[in-house]
């Protein structure tokens, strides 16, 4: 008895003492909050936070490297608790869910061969990219389903993954595991900033849309009778569906694959049907807004572009305010379009929708007179967007001063000089484009006492017939920096002959930039310590030139058609959002743009012709009696359903066969 007690007691004592001493000697401080946070995290180790597992994220959260809301799987309550532990503010996150990006299962798609191997996409993709002809086609073997830590995925009857949105936490495990990058996280915000790439399934119509509307998406929603969803799909790329449904140049319809069989799908009239439905209900359908963000953004210019940027930035969670120089919003929409083509209440409908969404507006505020870029930045805006777009500068100039710090317009400069008005140009001047007039202007600048005068042109030397010592060819302006109302620096780049690469970057101090164009480009002014700098939106799909602020093809804003301006406005919003979220605001390498080859089909099989639904015309009498009445009447619901049924729901090479 005594022996056992003694020996075990002694053994316990020795070990206990050893451990106690070891605990002291080998003591390593571990922040107790890490443990507390880890206990709260769900422990699914899904990696949705970007860290390898929950404990790593717990450490990162406590160290402040990762926000409390970084866990995609945690409930709001848990996030609140974590935030309390680390004493951090919570930044609410917009929910994201996985969205499969392929519409046709293996059974229905063109196949290169029949795959009979290991049932895993990662294995299947090793054999010539999988059995599908389409390089971005879902192989349907369910690798994503198996990887989902929350059981939100299953393979549906079509042989494609189906997402149970109630279970999906948006952790992105499926996105990471998919060897073809087909299933992707999606949210309205991601849609807003999205540009189509060659690595995703797109239909010819949506590639043709300058605003980038997901056309097959909204037509499918119409077919399913989900009109509200259809409107949201449109509005996340285009907040002017009513206007566009009347005046859009609809490049989409020219690209419609049904052209190969009969007539294109009546894409625009279908949009008109949705707008009619919306107006009949009397409620503006809105894209759900991302959680409120801290940043405020000012947009100068209340035209189509400015309003589009304001609306989409508002949907991205920013507080946006539009400064308009005239006394009404809508810009060029009010001018030059007969009322029977574009009724005024249609314009008002879209603009009202944008205001209703929470975009603030100040009318009669002229840039350069009532407000300046630096006064707005001083007010605390995180970005000031210039979207003065379609207006000719000369229609509302008048202050005599330049509206943007240090910027002069070439024609204006020459005119003022002719009239003998004083123009302050400072010591060094940069003249951007302008051909022979630029050389002329350079001469004047020298006369006026400028010491350094630079002229830069995008063209190759051989392509233009002007000479001049100071001219630098194949050089573009890429950025500006300044302080208050003063311009300090310009960033110019020498570009390669194909215009795609920057060969040399240079910063020069300038007091004035004289630009050869007649309009302001879209530009974003953001605060920088002791001043500001500019950010230039990335080039749109129609631009062949990717570098520089002034790009031929979209010399300034796209004012040729409202839908082009809408696209430009969306890219402006995307640029601001990306910049503020720390993502470099450049276009993706594989973005679909003019001249980029995309897999397509040349003929369609097994598609019986179905006549296109036509818009009904009003009677002659009626139109004579009321000259402002629209000539046509929109689709009835039945017509819309029938027309939507004609849509082939195209993918890159897939389409609906009968």
């Amino acid at each position: 008895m005594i022996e056992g007690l003694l020996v075990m007691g002694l053994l316990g004592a020795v070990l206990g003492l050893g451990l106690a001493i070891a605990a002291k000697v080998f003591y390593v401080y571990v922040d107790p909050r890490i443990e507390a946070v880890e206990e709260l995290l769900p422990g699914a180790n899904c990696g949705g936070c970007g860290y390898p597992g929950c404990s790593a994220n717990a450490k990162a959260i406590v160290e402040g490297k990762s926000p409390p809301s970084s866990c995609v799987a945690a409930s709001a309550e848990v996030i609140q608790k974590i935030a309390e532990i680390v004493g951090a503010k919570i930044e609410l996150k917009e929910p994201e869910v996985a969205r499969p990006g392929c519409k046709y299962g293996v059974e229905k798609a063109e196949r290169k061969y029949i795959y009979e191997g290991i049932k895993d996409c990662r294995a299947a993709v090793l054999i010539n990219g999988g059995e599908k002809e389409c390089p971005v086609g879902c192989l349907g073997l369910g690798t994503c389903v198996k990887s989902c830590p929350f059981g939100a995925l299953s393979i549906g009857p079509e042989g494609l993954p189906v997402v149970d949105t109630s279970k999906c936490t948006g952790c992105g495990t499926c996105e990471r595991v998919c060897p073809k990058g087909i299933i992707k996280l999606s949210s309205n915000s991601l849609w807003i900033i999205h540009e189509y790439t060659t690595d995703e399934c797109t239909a010819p119509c949506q590639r043709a849309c300058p605003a980038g509307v997901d056309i097959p998406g909204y037509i499918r929603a119409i077919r399913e009778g989900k009109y509200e969803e259809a409107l949201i799909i449109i509005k996340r790329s285009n907040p002017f569906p009513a206007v566009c449904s009347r005046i859009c140049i609809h490049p989409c319809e020219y690209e419609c694959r049904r052209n190969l069989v009969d007539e294109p799908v009546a894409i625009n009239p279908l949009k008109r049907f949705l707008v009619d439905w919306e107006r009949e209900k009397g409620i503006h359908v809105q894209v759900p807004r991302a959680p409120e963000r801290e940043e405020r953004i000012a947009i100068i210019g209340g035209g189509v572009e400015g309003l589009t940027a304001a609306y989409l930035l508002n949907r991205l969670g920013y507080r946006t305010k539009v400064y308009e120089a005239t006394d009404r919003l809508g810009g060029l929409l009010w001018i030059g379009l007969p009322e029977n083509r574009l009724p005024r209440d249609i314009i008002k409908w879209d603009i009202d929708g944008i205001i209703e969404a929470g975009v603030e507006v100040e009318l009669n505020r002229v840039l350069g007179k009532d407000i300046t870029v630096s006064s707005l930045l001083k007010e605390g805006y995180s970005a000031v967007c210039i979207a003065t777009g379609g207006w000719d500068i000369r229609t509302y100039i008048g202050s005599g001063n330049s509206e943007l710090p240090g910027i002069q317009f070439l024609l204006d400069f020459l005119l003022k000089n002719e009239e003998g008005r004083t123009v302050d140009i400072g010591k060094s001047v940069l003249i951007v484009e302008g051909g022979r007039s630029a050389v002329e202007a350079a001469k004047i600048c020298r006369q006026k006492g400028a010491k350094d005068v630079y002229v830069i042109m995008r063209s190759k030397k051989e392509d233009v017939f002007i000479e001049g010592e100071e001219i630098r060819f194949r050089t573009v302006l890429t950025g500006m920096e300044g302080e208050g109302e003063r311009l300090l620096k310009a960033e110019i780049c020498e570009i390669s002959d194909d215009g795609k690469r920057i060969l040399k970057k240079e910063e020069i101090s300038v007091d004035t930039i004289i630009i050869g164009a007649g309009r302001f480009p879209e530009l974003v002014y953001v605060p920088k310590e002791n001043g500001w700098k500019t950010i230039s939106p990335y080039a749109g799909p129609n631009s062949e030139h990717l570098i520089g602020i002034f790009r031929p093809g979209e010399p300034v804003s796209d004012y040729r058609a409202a839908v082009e301006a809408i696209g430009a406005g969306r890219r402006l919003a995307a640029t601001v959002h990306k910049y503020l979220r720390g993502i470099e605001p450049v276009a993706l390498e594989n973005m679909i743009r003019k001249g980029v080859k995309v897999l397509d089909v040349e003929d369609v099989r097994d598609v019986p012709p179905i006549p296109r639904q036509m818009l009904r015309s009003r009677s002659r009498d009626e139109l004579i009696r009321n000259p402002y009445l629209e000539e046509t009447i929109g689709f009835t619901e039945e017509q819309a359903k029938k027309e939507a049924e004609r849509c082939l729901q195209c993918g890159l090479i897939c389409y609906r066969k009968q």
Partner: protein
Amino acid sequence: MGDYIVLVISCIFINNILLMQYLGNCPFLGVSKRMETAVGMAMAVVFVLVMAGAVTWVVYHYILKPYELEYLRTLSFILVIASLVQFVEMFLKKNIPALYEGLGIYLPLITTNCAVLGVCIINIKEGYNFLQTLVSSFSYAVGFGLALVLFAAIRERILLARVPKPLQDTSIGLVTAGMLSLSFFAFKGMIH
């Protein structure tokens, strides 16, 4: 020398701790889902098992046996192993953080790994001397690691197969372990 080689082979293959002696199956099924965790666990077991084998041998032969307290074997061994594991954990955390990152999370699991206590008891029951104890502990641990890594490889492959729903996860894991165990039967003929 020959005896030691026989001992090594018999501990690794013929009497494989996992597949033949049924010891250490909980971690076997638990950490074998991914190769990296399997390798981590295997390393941790080799590390701890050799130390535990040595310490328990000393405790048994120099404390318990002289006082005829053999019946306290289980109690004292587990206490020693638990303390040892904790001690090693603290030591690594402080002095070799890199190794701790790798093995750390597996160490607490080892306390309840019956393979460790099992091997210590086997060593005593077989009456091994100190050197034999070291060799057998090491070999058993290597056998554990071998089976674990093999099994993890198979399980990663199973992930790609279409397994009937009710058989998924642990169930198919056990059946697979059975097959692996069957293949280890082949080693039985190696030593007469």
